[in-house]
Every structure is written in structure tokens, then in C-alpha cells.
């Protein structure tokens, strides 16, 4: 498939056309909205932010709210501790719950934040707040951190999606709000290839090429009448689509070796982790894996044996693989939930929703290794050191991959902070 031959062949070129127009605007030949645009800090230029290799984010979202006491902040032998032991990890002095024996061996790559107080016990609100870093306000939508990452980290000549959601549970897509549809998630339901990456049954690759060639001819003829940055961008999106179809195998985890498939196990989450590795190897800027089902109002302990049993080995394997393959230094890993679970054990051996004192894990690109940030009291009912919330978490994620989280987006003349301007990153967590 050849590209159209005029100079539109890359988004870089489009960007430079637009930049030039922007420059004209600042010089007074107002191409519209210039007054505001000129004064705003605008999008930090991609090139400046991406000195070095492609940065990536992998966010693992444990839906329902994983128990911090059965994972990252165990309190054995207390009234709230439950039946499990704490085990040592590869970081001297750091203990995590015995349900995560494989992960324990990888903790020298990761850090724990044990001091989240997100002041919320609602699933929907927690999901939005943890992944946007903004307090939810009625009638206002903020972009998912994946959309921000896709906007800031996707290179110009990149035809794969910048923001992929590998979905086992949870909402079907992650929105981009004012950043626009380009940055909303492409969803891989149950790890299947994204929608519309398969040609309709009767359409052969040759026929597709043929009809695209016709489309190009129609476009060329129309370009003789009027050509704008918009028409160029539209034409280019079809070239990208063809490139993506040609790389479709990127989405097919079955193309991995038998040995790897075996190492990651047969569980859905295992496949999703291997798929994430495959996508990260292809430099996809943001991937989120949703893993369920942690909403354990009943039988919290049995459920956590099951769920974390599914989580532990593939996750540990993925961290180790990324490290072995040299990908970890440019990949930020984050494991989060919408909230934690109550220290108090209810009458059904369950734990309920708890946003007051819980934990997340981060590691890889831009993050300290083996650190413990903040802490809770003896039986985990309160944060006693370094209270943080979703705002700090999203700032930290973005800063870790080199995005200036205190900057602003300038979208059609309106400005939006990249992250909550009232918050900042957790400085001591950053490498």
C-alpha cells in the first residue's frame, strides 16, 4: 500500500504546518483564538518531553477494591489482621502478605505507597478519581490518565493505538473527555483484538487495497479544489489504519511461544499480562489491564486466596520479564484499585469499602526501587505518615514518564490543567 505522494505523509508534517500557523497567529495574523492560545503554556512539546527512549505506562486495576491487608500492608496478629502471615520480600525489611509469594521476590523493582486516604467509598467515584486524578464533579468529565499518556507519549509515526484497555471487567472504555476521541481507549475485550481490526468476511486484502487506492484518487481530485490541515489529517488516518491492519498480529497473544504461554499460565489474567508484555514490546504508550473480582463483602479471605492466587505469578513473571528485557526502565507499572477494604472484619468474614487508609504499588520507569512511602497505624485503621490521594498518584505517574504534570492543555482555546493543580507528585517516590 503506497501512501499518497504529497507532503502530508506524517503527523510530524501536519504538526509543523500547524505550528507554523500558530506562529503566524502569535505574530498577529490571528488564525483564531490566538489571544488565549498565545498566552497559555500550551502542550509541552512532545520532543522536549521524550528525550531518550519511548516511555510507557502499564496500569493494573484490581476491580472491586483489593484488600490492602491481604496484599501490600499486612497487619498479622492484630484485631484487624486476618488469618494470613506477612512474608519477607526481596527488599530487606519490607513485608507483604503471604498470598503474594512470587511478587515478594520482585519487590526490589517496585515500591509501595501505604498512605492513601481518598475519602471515598463508592466504586464509580473511586474508579473515576483514581484514573483521572481529579475529584469527581457533577457535569464535568476529565480524561483518563491513559488518554493523557497517549496524548503526551505517542510518537508521530505510530500507527498502533496509544491507549489500550485490556478488559476482563469494569467499564468498556476509558474516556478522553476534552482531549478528544483520538486518545480514548481502544478496548481489547477479554484480550481479543480491538474492534474493527479485522476486515469484513468478504473483503480481501487486495480488495481493501483497491478501494483505498480509489479513495486516494477521489481525494487527490478534491485536493485540487481545497486542501487543509484537516483534509490531510483525515487522509493520513486511513494510511495509519492500513499500517495497523498490517501489524494486527501485535494483538494476538497466541503468537507468543509455547514456553511463554506456559509461564504466564492459563488464567485470563495470565494471558492479559503476556499480551501486555507483547504490546509494551511494541512501544504502546499506555496499557491498562482490568482484573476482577475483589469486592469481597463476604468471605474476604477465601476470595483473596483465589484472586491474588491468579494475580501473583503472572504479575511477578511480567515484572521480571520486563526487567530481563530491559523494558522496565522505560515502563512505569502501577497496581491500583478504586479503594481498599475495611480493617474491621464483618460478620460474614468479609471486608467492606474503605478509602481511608490503603495502598498501591508503583515501579519501573522514574520510580524509586524498593521504597515504602507513608504508613498506617498498628492495626491499619489510619494513615499516620504522608497522606496522599488520587491527585498525587496521577501526578506521580505522569512525572515518572517525563510528562510535566503541572502544565496545561490548550484545547481549541480553552485551557485545562494536565493534572489537578492543587496537588503534586509524591517527590520521594520519584527516582
Amino acid at each position: 500500500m503506497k501512501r499518497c505522494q504529497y507532503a502530508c505523509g506524517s503527523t510530524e508534517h501536519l504538526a509543523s504546518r500547524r505550528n507554523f500557523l500558530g506562529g503566524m497567529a502569535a505574530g498577529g495574523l490571528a488564525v483564531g483564538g490566538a489571544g488565549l492560545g498565545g498566552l497559555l503554556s500550551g502542550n509541552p512539546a512532545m520532543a522536549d518531553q521524550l528525550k531518550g527512549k519511548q516511555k510507557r505506562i502499564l496500569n493494573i486495576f484490581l476491580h472491586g477494591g483489593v484488600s490492602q491487608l491481604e496484599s501490600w500492608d499486612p497487619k498479622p496478629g492484630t484485631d484487624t489482621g486476618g488469618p494470613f502471615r506477612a512474608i519477607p520480600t526481596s527488599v530487606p525489611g519490607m513485608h507483604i502478605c503471604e498470598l503474594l509469594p512470587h511478587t515478594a521476590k520482585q519487590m526490589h523493582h517496585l515500591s509501595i505507597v501505604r498512605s492513601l486516604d481518598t475519602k471515598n467509598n463508592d466504586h464509580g467515584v473511586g474508579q473515576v478519581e483514581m484514573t483521572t486524578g481529579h475529584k469527581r464533579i457533577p457535569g464535568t468529565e476529565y480524561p483518563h490518565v491513559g488518554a493523557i499518556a497517549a496524548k503526551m507519549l505517542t510518537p508521530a509515526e505510530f500507527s498502533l493505538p496509544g491507549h489500550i484497555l485490556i478488559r476482563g471487567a469494569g467499564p468498556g472504555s476509558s474516556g478522553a473527555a476534552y482531549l478528544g476521541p483520538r486518545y480514548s481507549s481502544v478496548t481489547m475485550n477479554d484480550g481479543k483484538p480491538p474492534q474493527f481490526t479485522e476486515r469484513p468476511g468478504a473483503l480481501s486484502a487486495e480488495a481493501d487495497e483497491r478501494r483505498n487506492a480509489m479513495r486516494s484518487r477521489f481525494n487527490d481530485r478534491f485536493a485540487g479544489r481545497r486542501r487543509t490541515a484537516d483534509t490531510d489529517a483525515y487522509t493520513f488516518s486511513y494510511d495509519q489504519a492500513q499500517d495497523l491492519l498490517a501489524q494486527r498480529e501485535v494483538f494476538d497473544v497466541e503468537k507468543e511461544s509455547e514456553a511463554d504461554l506456559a509461564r504466564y499460565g492459563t488464567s485470563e489474567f495470565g494471558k492479559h499480562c503476556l499480551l501486555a508484555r507483547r504490546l509494551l514490546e511494541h512501544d504502546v504508550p499506555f496499557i491498562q489491564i482490568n482484573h476482577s473480582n475483589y469486592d469481597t463483602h463476604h468471605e474476604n479471605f477465601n476470595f483473596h486466596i483465589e484472586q491474588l492466587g491468579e494475580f501473583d505469578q503472572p504479575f511477578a513473571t511480567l515484572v521480571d520479564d520486563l526487567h530481563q528485557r530491559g523494558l522496565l526502565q522505560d515502563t512505569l507499572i502501577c497496581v491500583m484499585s478504586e479503594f481498599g477494604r475495611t480493617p474491621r472484619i464483618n460478620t460474614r468474614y468479609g471486608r467492606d469499602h474503605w478509602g481511608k487508609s490503603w495502598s498501591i504499588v508503583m515501579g519501573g520507569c522514574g520510580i524509586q526501587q524498593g521504597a515504602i512511602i507513608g504508613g498506617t497505624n498498628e492495626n491499619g485503621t489510619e494513615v499516620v505518615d504522608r497522606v496522599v490521594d488520587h491527585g498525587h498518584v496521577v501526578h506521580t505517574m505522569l512525572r515518572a514518564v517525563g510528562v510535566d504534570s503541572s502544565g496545561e492543555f490548550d484545547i481549541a482555546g480553552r485551557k485545562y490543567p494536565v493534572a489537578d493543580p492543587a496537588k503534586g507528585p509524591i517527590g520521594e517516590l520519584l527516582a
Partner: protein
Amino acid sequence: MNILPMASPVRSFLACAIFASICSIAAPDRLLADTPPVANEPLHQRIDAAVEHSAIGPMAALCTDADFVRRIYLDLTGVIPSHEQVETFLADDAPDKRARLIDTLIEGPEFARHFAVQLNVLLLDRRTDTTVDQKAWEAYLIDSIARRKPLDQIFQELIDPSGTDDPATPARKFLLNRDAEPHAMTRDVGRMVFGMDMQCAQCHDHPIIDDYYQADYYGLFAFLNRTTKFTDPKSKLIVLSEKAEGEAPFESVFTGEGRETTLPRVPWGATLYDEPTFSAEEAYQVKPDKENAGKPSFSRREALAKRLSENEQFRRNIANRVWALVLGRGLVHPTDFHYAENPPVNPELLALLTDDLAQHKFDLHYAVRQIVLSKTYQRSCEPPAPETLNLADIRSRLDALTQRQEPLIAAADQLKEQVETTKVVWQEALAVNDEVAEQLPPLEEKLAQSRTAAEKATAEHAEAQKAYAALTQRAEPIQTVLTATKAAIEKVADEPALKESLVLLEKRSGELAAEMTTAKAELDKKMEALTAAKKMVETTEAEVATVLAKRITPERLTELELAHLSVVSEAGKADATARLAQAQIELCQSILDYPAIALSDSEKAEVAWEAIVNRWTLQGQVAPLKPLTPEQLAASAMQATGFLARSQTAAQAAVEKTPPKALEAEGITDEEKALVTQIAVQGEMLNQLRGSVNQFVGQFGGLSGEEFQATVNQALFLGNSPTVNNWLAAAGDTLVGRLNATEQPTAIADPLCLAVLSRPATLDEQREIANFLTETVGEEAGKRPAALAELVWAMITSNEFRFNH
């Protein structure tokens, strides 16, 4: 393949430059319109005059009939015309056929649906909620537009739904979609009703926009912060409830200057100085409690609604929004940011539209009709070629503009000074009242005290008087007996009893006389104190009256504020005019610089030329390319492929099967019946299209004012989705089916182009399409539908289809 046949502007310009250097004739390339529009002409002519007045360089020609028919259908009905509609229009020879088609479409049923869809997107930002049924809300919008409800009335109903007859009016969705949260309402009423997004002024004066103050934000907030969402416990109906109290205090997080409170004030409008006050018992018509939504005796939200029509910024925003709905971009852009540094691209045109729309009762049909009748709307999207530039004309224009610039700046500066003067006068009046408000309480306290003191003095005086009177009463009989005893002694001198009595009586009388002297003295003293206290009351009363007399009446304050605002408005216009002159000077300069660039660097020349064409587009000299909205794109793809007719039939059938209840009303006229049915069909049509449209919205976004984005997902969706693929099927009533019934390969291009691109095929296309079919199908007729589907797809995904041109 893909060799670009685009005429090179660079090469053409070289020819032009050579031509100009030979001839150097200064032929005017348009009427040199330094004459402003005339007031009594139809609006569309005045629009054109205003555009020509500020134009620099050539204007694009009027668009072709084929461009026009596609454009007008998309802009007035939200979908491309059917091939029959195109053919009918192109075959019509009448010179007034464009005006007639405009009238037909504006009076037609789809107009209301298309504008309801656009209003829905504008008002709800594509957010869903469950407070008011989406279909009922759409029906409300369609009904409002179909019945030509003035736009100011629609906005009044959105802000104050209780102002309508129907307590359950779907209009309440606008505020309930924001959960009736005061800051969310303030932000979006600011944006959509006044064109001012003051969100950044919530916590401090706007850091970038000098004209947005925290007090502006809280002035609007004060109209809305007494309102909350209320769910009726019985009916579960969600409505708005309002309290009778609650002020709008605010504090800057920057200055730390302490809390201020603002009265309700429309942004860049008058303050509510004369708010009626009620006693606690009379504060409510319906008191808010668990069972009832509150309805205060004076509703601030209603007061806001009532103030819209007369508010200058509301009018300007409405004019700008209507322009943006038709032309794809506001004269002020972004439409949410009216302020000095972001002036309208043509201030004269915006002022003209603002005044004329208000005079025509904010009638959407009138406004849209006039806009689309204008030459400005009907211009071609093809920019004039560089060789049509008349550099001598541009040069003389530049000289004239440069000469005009200084006086314009001086005039603007002078008005800016006047703004300060009138502001001082108004602020001084406010300061007087502040001073009064400060002086009054201690004086009133003093008055109360002196009144208490006077009361006390009166009481004490009365007491003393009473004591004195008592003594007098007691002394009288003793005096009488004393006198009688003395007389008796004179007659009987040696009576010892009398003598003894006399001694006793004289002693007692003496004692009483002494007591009376003391009491009299006390009485006199109390009288003196009473007089002094009364005097003090009088003096203090006079002092209070003097201070009160200084207070300025609400009427006078409003008068001063309005005088100030009118100068602000004038100054804004003068400033915008001066800024426009600057932009025009720079455009002249860019055009004059172009020949040198064209000769030296073709890449730079291409960019420079694009910048010039972009500015011409903004100024209305060239028609814009407008990306189709997701709704337009979905419906147009269905129209092209023959699938829209199916939805239309289904919508008709659904309404026939379940006719609207309103048809059963007693004494309903035939005309009303037809209207009600038509509105129901259009609402049902949205329902029929919802599934497809939602898929397109998911891919293409389409928030109002959003920047164009082309994404790989969109291309994959249009390429591979079952939805689009199904539209390429060959059935009796589909485009592919119809084309498949035409045997001659050379006879395919015309019906194909008419259906998809709303124009006949060119000769090139006829040849190309015939070749494509022959090569692809060969001798295997079975391959023909697939080949035709490829052609239809290639056209639907082309730029010519994606953009409204």
C-alpha cells in the same frame, strides 16, 4: 498512483507576478467598500456588506449549484440530499431557485430536528443523565423549534423551568444534568448563555483573561446558589428546589483580602440592587421540606431568566452561537470566550447580527434564513488563485489602513478613559452607600439609647411629681387645722389643749414645709433632665436623617451602572475595530510578502499561502471546509447508500401505530394535528437513527467547538465495522443494488456521484469508474456487487464526503 493533480499556487503566482509587472493595472477586485452597511436593507445584504467592508484581496466566487445543494441540505436538515433532490435542483432553471429551496427547507420538518440535535449537543455536552428522559428532552427541543419559540424564551425556560405552565417540563434537564450543583450551573450558564467561561475566576480573578473577575463569577453564582435538586418522594419526579436565603461570599486564594459578598449580577450586566425583602413568614410561596420543593416569594433564578433578553452579552452570545451553528465557527471563537483579547473576527458583523436578531425577537428561522441567503454563506470553498491578487490594490488598502489605524487606536483609548471615568462615578456612588452603611449602625444605636434615656427621664420626672403632690396633699389639712387652732387661741387664749396642739402642729407643719422644698428641688432637677433627654433624641434623629439623605437609591445605582456598561460596550467595539485594523494590516503585509517567498522557497510559499487562505476563510471571503458532525456523517452515509429511507418509513409507521396523545385533545385544529404529527415523526426519527449515530459519536466525538480529529479508530470503523459494511449490501432499495441493475459500466458514475457526492460525475471520473469496474469484475458478473461496494466505500470515505464544502 496518487499523483496530486493540484494546481500549484506557486507556479500560478509566478505567472501572476509577471503579468502584474507588465501591466501593473490597479483594477479593483471588489467594490472598495469603505461604506458601512445600510440599515434598511435585508439582513443578508448587510451581512455581505459587512464582510466586504473588512475584506482584503479577492473574494471566492459563489459556489456551484451542486456545492450549494449539498451544503444547504447538510446545514438545514442535517443530511445530504437524496439523488432525486439533487437532480431536481440541478434541473431547475429558475434564477431564484436557491432562495426557494432555502424557504422550503426552513419551513420543512427536518429543520427542527437538525437544530434540536445541535442544541442538545451544545446544552448537554453529550453527557447523559437519568433525571429527565432523553426522548422527552429531544421532543421538547424539536417542539420549541418547530413552533418557532424565540431563542431567548428557550433559554429562559432552561434557567427557570417553573416559568412554563408545565411543572414537569423537560426544560429542567439543562440544570439537572449538572445535578443543580451551584458551581456546575454557574460555569455552564456562564458558558452557554453568556459566552463566558469564568470557571478559572471561581477561586481568584481570572489569571489570563483580564476581563473576568471573581466578582463576575460570584455575581452569577448568587442567582443560582439557592437552587438544589429535589426528588418528589411520591412521584419520584426530579425537579429544582430553591431557598429564600443564602448569599454568595467569596475569598480570593491569591490576595487573601478576606471575604466579600456580592449581590446577584449578570456578567457584564446590572446588579440586582432592588431585591424585594420579605419577613420570615412571607419568604416562601412553598416552603422547602421533605415533601415539597421550595418556591421562594422572590426567586433569584427567575430574576436571572427575566434579565436575559435585555442583556447585551446574552444577545451577542446568541448571535455568535447562531452564526457558529451555520458556519461552523463563531465570529468570536472559541464561542465560550468573549473578552477583549479575543475580539470578533468582524466586530461590525457581530454588532449587526446582535442588534438585528434582538429586533426580530431572537427568531432562529429568520436568523438562519438570512445567513444562508447571504453571498458570504454561498461562497465557494475554493480559494481565489494567486494570479487574481491585485497587489496594487492591496498596497493602497494597506496605506489607507495604516493611516486609519492611529485615529482608531486613539478613539479606542479615549473610550477606555471614559470607561474609567464612568466606573469611578458608579463606584463612588457605591462607596457612598458603603459609608452610609458604616455610619448608620452607631447612630442608630445612639438613637435607641437616647430614646431609652428619655423614657427613663420621663418616668423619673413623673415619680418626683407624684411625690411632691403627695406631700402637698398631706400638708393641706395640717395647715387648715393650724390656722383654725390659731384662730381658736385668739378667742380662748388660756386653753392648754389648744396651746399644746399649736406647738405640735407648728412643728409638723415646719417639717412638711422642709420636705416639700426638697421634693420641689428634686422635681425641678428631673424636669431639667427630661428636657435634656428629649433634646438628645431630637438631635440624634436629625443626625440619622442627614446620613440617610446621603444614601443613593437603587434606581440611581442601576442608572450609573448601566451608563458605565454602555461605555464599556462602546469601548469594546472600538477596541475590536482597532484590533481588526491591525489584523488587516498584517494580512495585507502577508499578501504583499508572498511574491518574494513564492520566488525563493516553494515549501515556505505553500505554508504562507495556506495562512492567507485561512485568514480569508475566517473573514468570510472563502467558504470553510466543515467536518460533518457524527450525526450528519451517519445520516448522510445512510442517505447515500439508500438506508435512510428505511428509517424514515419506520418512523412514520411507528407514529401511525402509536399516535401522540396530544392528537386526542378536544377541538384540535387540522393544522395543529399536522404539526403535532410532524414533531412526533422527527422525534421518532432520532430514535430510529440512535443506534448508528451512537456508534459514530463513539468514534468521532463531536462536542460543540471541538477541534477536528481524524483517528485511526475512525478509519478502522468506517473500513471494517458491520454497520458500515451492511450499508454496502446489494438489495433492491440500496445504492449498490440500484447500481448493480445498471449494466453499462460507463453509466455507473453519474448515479453513484449523484447519490454520494450530490453532483454528476466528471468525464474523468466516468472513465476511471468504468475502468475500475471492467478491470475488477472482468468476465465474472458475480464480482460486480462487491466491486460496486468498493466504489461506494471509496467515495463515502473520501474527503469530499467527510467535509461540508
